[in-house]
């Protein structure tokens, strides 16, 4: 493996995630294996065992403990890494809120997988979407190159803002699929991602409470200094999340200057400049949508794609700008906010309404529990939406792709 020069390797998404953690020189890894994330944990265990990575690999009995170890190490001031999926992520859920509330710059991977029941190990995005309101930044990747690049960006974003970042990549579709990935050299990564400057209060000479009970209103501490109440902490966290909209874009520009590649930052687009119809999605589905856009253009429909990379924070202004020229936006979700359509569909509608950009917006649910989604089905959905607009004058119910009921 190249140390100081970049090289292309044909690797899985899990391996790309592990390579990013190696290049970020994480010092503590604690993770519990779960399908489809296991490959990233196995690769990192191998790196530590063979001396490729100088890190402490802490084996734990559960995901809850994995994040507990990461919290401890991050509080002490080192760069940490963990990853999970579905049930494991759900088991970790309580700790996710401890991480963000403690403003720890933890980066974790989520190889997206369906939630039980019924039992299913395959891909959709319900696991991460169900955890969205814990105050973590959530970034979605379209391919394996973007997994590696996004993790490197995530450490930078997290450490600039003292916020945790979850890097989401579709289980199996990316985690288990090999494709060419350019792996940068260590020196180049060190330039982009400097050594973590710990922002810690752990000090033997100045012992303090960490995360004490914090009541409703600001109170004076023992020295008479007025300290925040719970609500002030949460306000500052929200401010940081909103500020991260700029940081995510800035970090991507820094990344591009360093590596010559861009992820797009908050969103990416394909053939959107002159598009009349936009397909909107997050993750590998958005990549598949770009193939559908090609087919639609061949059929005379000016189609383009808006790929959502940052789901939290939700880039409402950028989404509205990107969609300001289209007559129709068709949003594909690989998860549900049960009782109210797909989460990206709901958020896109709100973003457009708030910014007074009002194309026709339709939503489709696709690929739940590993149901394959191909470009042909996406094309059919777009054609269905176009036909609806010309024949119906009422809201279109959310559609389900390739439902066999």
């Amino acid at each position: 493996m190249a140390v100081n020069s970049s090289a292309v390797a044909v690797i899985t998404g899990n391996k790309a995630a592990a390579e990013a953690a190696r290049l970020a020189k994480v010092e503590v890894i604690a993770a519990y294996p779960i399908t489809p994330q296991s490959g990233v944990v196995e690769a990192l265990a191998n790196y530590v065992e063979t001396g490729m990575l100088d890190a402490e690999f802490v084996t734990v009995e559960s995901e809850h403990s994995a994040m507990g170890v990461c919290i401890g190490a991050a509080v002490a001031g080192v760069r940490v890494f963990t990853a999970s999926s579905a049930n494991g992520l759900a088991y970790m859920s309580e700790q996710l809120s401890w991480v963000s509330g403690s403003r720890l710059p933890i980066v974790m991977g989520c190889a997206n997988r369906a939630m039980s029941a019924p039992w299913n190990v395959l891909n959709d995005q319900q696991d991460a979407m169900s955890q969205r309101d814990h105050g973590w930044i959530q970034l979605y990747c379209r391919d394996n190159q973007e997994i590696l690049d996004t993790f490197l960006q995530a450490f930078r974003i997290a450490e600039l803002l003292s916020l945790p970042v979850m890097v989401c990549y579709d289980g199996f579709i990316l985690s288990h699929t090999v494709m060419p990935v350019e792996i940068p050299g260590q020196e180049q990564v060190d330039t982009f991602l400097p050594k973590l400057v710990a922002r810690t209060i752990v000090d033997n000479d100045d012992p303090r409470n960490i995360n004490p009970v914090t009541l409703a209103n600001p109170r004076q501490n023992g020295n008479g200094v007025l300290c925040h109440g719970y609500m002030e902490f949460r306000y500052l966290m929200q401010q940081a999340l909103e500020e991260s909209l700029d940081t995510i874009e800035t970090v991507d520009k820094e990344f591009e200057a360093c590596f010559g590649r861009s992820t797009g930052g908050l969103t990416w687009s394909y053939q959107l400049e002159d598009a009349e119809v936009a397909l909107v999605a997050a993750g590998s589905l958005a990549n598949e949508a770009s193939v559908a856009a090609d087919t639609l253009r061949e059929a005379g429909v000016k189609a383009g794609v808006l790929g959502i990379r940052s789901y939290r924070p939700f880039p409402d202004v950028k989404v509205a700008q990107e969609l300001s020229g289209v007559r129709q936006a068709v949003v594909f979700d690989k998860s549900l906010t049960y009782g109210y359509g797909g989460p990206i569909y709901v958020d896109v509608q709100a973003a457009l309404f708030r910014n007074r950009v009002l194309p026709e917006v339709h939503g489709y649910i696709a690929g739940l529990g590993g149901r394959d989604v191909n470009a042909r089905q996406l094309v059919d959905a777009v054609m269905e939406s176009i036909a609806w607009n010309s024949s119906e004058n009422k809201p279109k119910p959310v559609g389900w792709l390739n439902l066999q009921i």
Partner: protein
Amino acid sequence: MLEKEFEIRWHGRGGQGAVTSANMLAEAAYHAGFRGVMSAPTFGAERRGAPITASTRIAPRPLRCLSQVEYPDMIVVLDDSLLTTANATNGLAPDGFVVVNSSSEPEELGLGNGYRIAVADANHIAKEVGLIISGTLMINTAMLGAVARASGLIKLEHIEKALNSIFSPRAASKNFEAARLTYEQTRCLSPADMPV
């Protein structure tokens, strides 16, 4: 050089190394200059001995298509019993390639309706080279040689490079020897149809 995407579906049994070979084929194709290469197992659970599939996509330009392969241009069958039990030819193009590990002659496989058939006795070659792990013949890497011969998309040197990135030098050279012998001994039913 290939204009459009070429899709290959591997049929094997759990433990035969179909997924590993599918991945190595993607890497070999990258070394051969194709910038769009991708390979994946068919998603789900795998059991030793049960029929499994994996897919490799090869294209001149980077790929954006991540859905499962439905209409392969080539199938690679690691065990000729899968030809009938696993409906291996499902979705295969009428003039598609069928690459089979078998001791039978191409004509004897009962496939001859337009398919371009290539047969190699990889079991025999693996035994000859000594590719035996825990009493099981490892034929997956040998079959890379048959794929190279039948498709003309990759050369032996690209296979060698891919093997070297996965195996230790000793194991790589043994596996390459199997691929090389298989390349030489692959029998094609209609060689005139084969791209060079």
